[in-house]
């Protein structure tokens, strides 16, 4: 039990935290963009599965990792297009469309996997780990934190990029206006629907990439339903991060830490907590996190409300 308190344990946990947070960072940053435009997409879970499967199938067929991620992003955007058509064009209830997207994502990926890929049982070559010069030389912390694959490092760029897009470009300004006061944008002569489509497509392609991380950089296999709630946790991350992409990055790390601790403690023979209690930790933490955010003044004003011209 003593060595839980050592630097080595801490460093390993932190490294695992970042790795396990990566798919949640992708999905939650994407959802921040979508929700800032007023569109609530609870179909992240299904979208991530679609990305995970598409990425895996592409790399399985071609052996080309970048192409796999590209395909996963495109498949996520395609799922986003379906969502956007129902949620924005037809103005259907966004929660129900999201629930349908989750079922479709789970059903389609499992169906195609069982039909075409399950017999193969083979994995794919995953994204290799890469040392960050100098930083990986830091004692104790260097190797666990800075010998990761490039997708893990890219989460910093994703969060910063989303921040720049939302708060430093005129596109982002209009996108946020669409979420707060769509009528103003409409009267100003710009299409609310167009901006919402763009936000959903960006959000869903990021979710697709987050899914692909699971099959192409984390595990080397596709497993049915392998996202196991990460898409839903990302939804809570967005609320806890108060719709900020940088916030989503750090809150995702917090949830990644619960996954990491859970796995580390399960492997710890001296700890006598039932493993199911440990497994439940990230989900329990999600509920507790929601309770800590009582003041919701940052919520985009028209979140989940279709825009109707009068």
């Amino acid at each position, binding site marked *: 039990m003593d060595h839980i308190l050592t630097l080595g344990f801490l460093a390993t946990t932190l490294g695992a935290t970042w790795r396990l947070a990566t798919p949640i960072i992708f999905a939650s940053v994407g959802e921040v963009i979508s929700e800032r435009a007023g569109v609530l997409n609870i179909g992240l879970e299904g979208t991530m599965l679609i990305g995970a499967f598409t990425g895996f199938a592409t790399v399985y067929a071609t052996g080309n990792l970048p192409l796999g991620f590209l395909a996963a992003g495109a498949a996520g955007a395609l799922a986003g297009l379906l969502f956007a058509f129902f949620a924005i064009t037809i103005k259907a209830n966004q929660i129900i469309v999201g629930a349908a997207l989750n079922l479709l994502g789970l059903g389609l990926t499992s169906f195609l996997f069982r039909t075409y890929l399950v017999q193969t049982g083979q994995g794919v070559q995953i994204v290799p780990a890469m040392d960050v010069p100098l930083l990986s030389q830091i004692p104790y912390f260097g190797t666990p934190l800075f010998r990761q694959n490039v997708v893990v490092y890219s989460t910093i760029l994703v969060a910063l990029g989303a921040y720049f897009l939302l708060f430093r470009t005129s596109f982002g300004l209009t996108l946020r206006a669409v979420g707060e006061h769509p009528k103003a944008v409409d009267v100003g002569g710009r299409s609310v629907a167009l901006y919402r489509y763009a936000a959903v497509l960006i959000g869903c392609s990021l979710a697709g990439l987050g899914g692909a991380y699971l099959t192409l950089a984390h595990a080397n296999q596709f497993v049915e339903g392998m996202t196991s709630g990460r898409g839903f946790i990302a939804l809570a991350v967005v609320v806890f991060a108060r719709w900020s992409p940088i916030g989503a990055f750090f809150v995702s790390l917090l949830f990644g830490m619960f996954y990491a601790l859970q796995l580390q403690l399960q492997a710890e023979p001296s700890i006598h907590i039932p493993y199911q209690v440990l497994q439940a930790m990230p989900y329990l933490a*999600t509920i507790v996190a929601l309770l800590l955010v009582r003041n919701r003044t940052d919520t985009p004003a028209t979140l989940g409300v279709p825009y109707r011209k009068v």
Partner: protein
Amino acid sequence: MADINIPPPTNATSILAGASLRAGLSRLAKATAPPVVAVLLALLAGAVLLAVTGFYAFDIFTVMVNGVFQDVGSIAEMLLRATPLILIGIGLCVAFRCSIWNIGAEGQFYAGSCAATFCGVQFAGLPSWAHILLILVAGAAAGALWAAIAGLLKVLFNASEIVTTIMLNYIAIFMTSYLVTGPLMESGAAYPQSAKLLREVWLPRVVPSTRLHIGILIAVALAMIIYVFLFRSSAGYAVRIVGINSHAARYAGISVRRSILLAISISGSMAGLAGAMQIAGVTHRLYQDISPGYGFEAIAVALLANNNPVGAIFSGILFAVLDSGSELMQINAQVPQVLVFIIQGMVILSVVGFAALKFQSARPQE
């Protein structure tokens, strides 16, 4: 999802019996046409997917339908599957009518199963009828409590019930896993499972030589009761008004918090009861994966019925036919059974698509 029925304009002829019957039939046709078309569209999508992936869709659907309606035994098995779907579905009708997005029926089903198993293996010596009643009530209460957690977090902390109910699903499933590998585990069992319930507390069967138990009758009766609650009681009226416009409800003096808690607890109790019936009527013991996703499938059941509990009887049976059929499909034609998830998703999309289009066409033109 708000469904406001505007009565058709009345004129002198409509007081005649024939005309009112015709008006009633046409209303019924108008109400049933969208879900029927939605199901047909979803099946068509499933058929296209089968055709694209190299299966003979038409043969497969024929095998499905013939297999499900082959004999009394196969119909009874189908209705056995419909029982939890109807029960959970009618509960979700109440929650959805209140605009409470309870995605946690799966976890509430697990909570009900756990409580029912606990009461089933304890309290030996009670009269059989009292013990069965205790099991069912305990299941319903556990489901209601599990749902009420999300309800309380919603009214006290404004925490999204979508996220909390989903997280509670995972927690309930891990809790079940803990119980059957620990406190409730059958001593000496090789697999994680609870002890078997005594035969005295099994639910009575309604069709001899099949597994169909009285749960199906209780489910149908409860559907009627919930219909009356929603559309003929003031509490049900309050639930629906809160669902349509909670601000208007507050100004009308309705307690929004109470309606939300009531609606989510009712939906949880139905899911918990379904779990208890699964234990007392079908499996007779608790396993780790006691539900094949009934709680999620029931979302489609409620939506297809336009959140009408009586309609949910029929949509529950429809999805049970698809489930039983897809099992046959997997055995006979090696078509992955997960196809039903795709069909469920398509049904939901078609239903909300129709509902949204109807709403748009009903709006006045500018």
